[in-house]
């Protein structure tokens, strides 16, 4: 004869198991009904501002011969200096994130924001995907830094020095070589840009 308390205990447990099974089945159905999350957006950035376009000069890096070449582009540029700076770098990154990029950056690389602080200070804040996924090497990092800074200084007058941050914080190097601890001297970078022009 099964003791009464044991019988009641087994029944309670069976009911609990049945109840949890029904609940789990119900939850599975709900999860299946939720649409799948889209994959991380790795598309190239496009300038966000729409309006009258202006001609700007972007300085584009070419890994093939390790050169920096000016490229004219019609870009929609807002009137504010800071917004203009952000749009210029967005346009530059659009080139680098394209499939046919002459100087590939990692997917997800982005300029989070650009701050212009008087007198003559620009701060470029890159996202971590930009730095973490950047190829390592003296020249390849040299090209990226020069491209960003020279594109800014050529289109926005008055910038004397540039600081590059990653995710809002100071970082030692871009990818093991290019120093990010100090302020870049725009005059020196422009001279480097001349050195990096393709040999005729």
């Amino acid at each position, binding site marked *: 004869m099964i003791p009464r308390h044991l019988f009641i205990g087994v029944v309670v447990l069976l009911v609990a198991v049945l109840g949890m099974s029904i609940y789990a089945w119900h939850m599975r159905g709900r999860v299946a009904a939720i649409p799948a999350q889209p994959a991380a957006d790795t598309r190239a950035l496009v300038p966000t501002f729409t309006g009258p376009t202006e001609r700007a000069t972007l300085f584009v890096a070419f890994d093939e011969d390790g050169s920096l070449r000016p490229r004219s582009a019609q870009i929609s540029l807002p009137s504010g200096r800071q917004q203009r700076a952000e749009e210029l770098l967005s346009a530059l990154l659009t080139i680098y994130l394209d499939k046919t990029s002459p100087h590939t950056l990692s997917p997800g690389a982005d300029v989070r924001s650009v701050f212009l602080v008087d007198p003559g200070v620009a701060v470029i804040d890159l996202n971590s995907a930009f730095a973490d996924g950047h190829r390592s*090497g*003296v*020249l390849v990092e040299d090209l990226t830094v020069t491209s960003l800074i020279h594109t800014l200084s050529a289109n926005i007058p008055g910038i*004397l020095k540039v600081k590059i941050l990653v995710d809002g914080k100071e970082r030692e190097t871009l990818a093991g*070589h290019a*120093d990010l601890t*100090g*302020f870049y001297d*725009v005059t020196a970078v422009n001279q*480097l840009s001349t050195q990096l022009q393709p040999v005729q």
Partner: protein
Amino acid sequence: MRWNNLRSTWWKSGASAPRKASKIGTGFCPGGRILRPQQIFQRPAISLIISAPILLAAILLPAAAPDKHLSVYSTAANYSLPVVQRDRRDYVGLLEVLEPLGKVTAKFDGQRWRLRYNNRVEGDFFVGKTRVRVQGHDAELPARFLLENDRGLVPVSSLASLLPRFLGGPVTVHEDSDRLFIGSIATHFTASLAGDNPPKLVFHFTTPVNPMVSTEPGALRMTFNREPLVAPALPTLTFGSKVIPSATYAETNGGAAITVSSPVPLIASFSADGRTATISPTSPASAQTVVAPPTPPAPASSSVAGGPSPVSHRYFAVIDASHGGDDRGETLSPTLFEKDVTIALARSLRQELESRGITVLDLRDSDATLSLDQRAYLTNTNRAAVYIALHATAGGHGVRVYTALMPYGGDDRGPFHSWTTSQQAHLSLSQSAAADIVNEFQKRQIPVRALTAPLRPLNNVTTAALAVEVAPQGSDLMQLTAPDYQQLVTSAVATAIAADRDRLGAPQ
């Protein structure tokens, strides 16, 4: 070794020794009767029981593995320390490592073992923990710290990162062979074949050496137990000669050896200053010649040789194999990192410079981590005439020679110069040295570019400073590891530096 130790302990017991011997000489029989020594050996069973362990010990003790020891080379002293195995790792007493180098004290307060070096640097070690604190900065040991009989034991592999914190200079550990180099103490060598009939192999050493020379069929071996000899760019050197085809460098248990292979018997002779060894085939008449190198004189000072220089530099050139340790640099292939190529390039460049009579301080000769500030500090304090950082890359072709892209501003205050713009006063000298190197590459038809780069520590160095980034000439990445390509690059750099010696060495 152990037998010798036992014997020496016995002799040290002095007056009590005979008494002990007398005890050993007596024994007990099963019946409890005391036996005299001669009676013991009259009974075969007892004598077998006594003699078997002695015989076994006599056979096994000499065959046991030799005790491991760590050879330490420094400018202050060369010494050897016992290495103990704990948790399948090699450990060494930290106090014993530092003791010959300066004043060391240690005390244990029940929780931490505090080590004080030269009344200047303090380190706290915690028993059973991997965390240590030196001068207020935390560091991690690769294995836990041990305290045995008040001896603080640290893993041998931790010395490369731990000792620079106490000594303030670079330290190189050859972990596989238990050799520790403090500062730029290493003795380098070059080997070249001279003469055709018969050919002679000439070794040039950067400091006097006194190796033990032994011969065996097909080889002559020079064993360096006291000299801080280090490997050439490649462990096996080939000479394209049938008489002396190759020489091999190897390190084992605190020493180094060069083995010269040859189908004919060889002899070694040494120059009076102990810096040159000549290996040549022996004639039948001279086959019995006793080979013994002369005792070298005291080491010469490391001033620049091969021509007077306006300024005496302890080291004329500083070579910096960039990256190292946790910083692998560029991943050139899944199995090849930039830090490994830069070491090979540095060794090759060192050989090339030294063969031109230029003294060299090599900042990194192992997989050690050195911060950029440490690299600049070591260069500046040694007052070298030129600093050369070496980089390697898979991108592009040929060689790039960089000088510093100076950062904005700098906050010089009177005699104090800003750390970030220390290079400013020396930039034109750096640029002219870079231009000379570029010319040399062009002469050799190696693709080359001269650029500036925001590359630390170039901007922190207070002498001519440049970086050389080497890429393969074609698409074959493995060219970066090819000794002939490395030598092609480094010999061009060395030639340009040697030609520029007077200008670089002039007071600035």
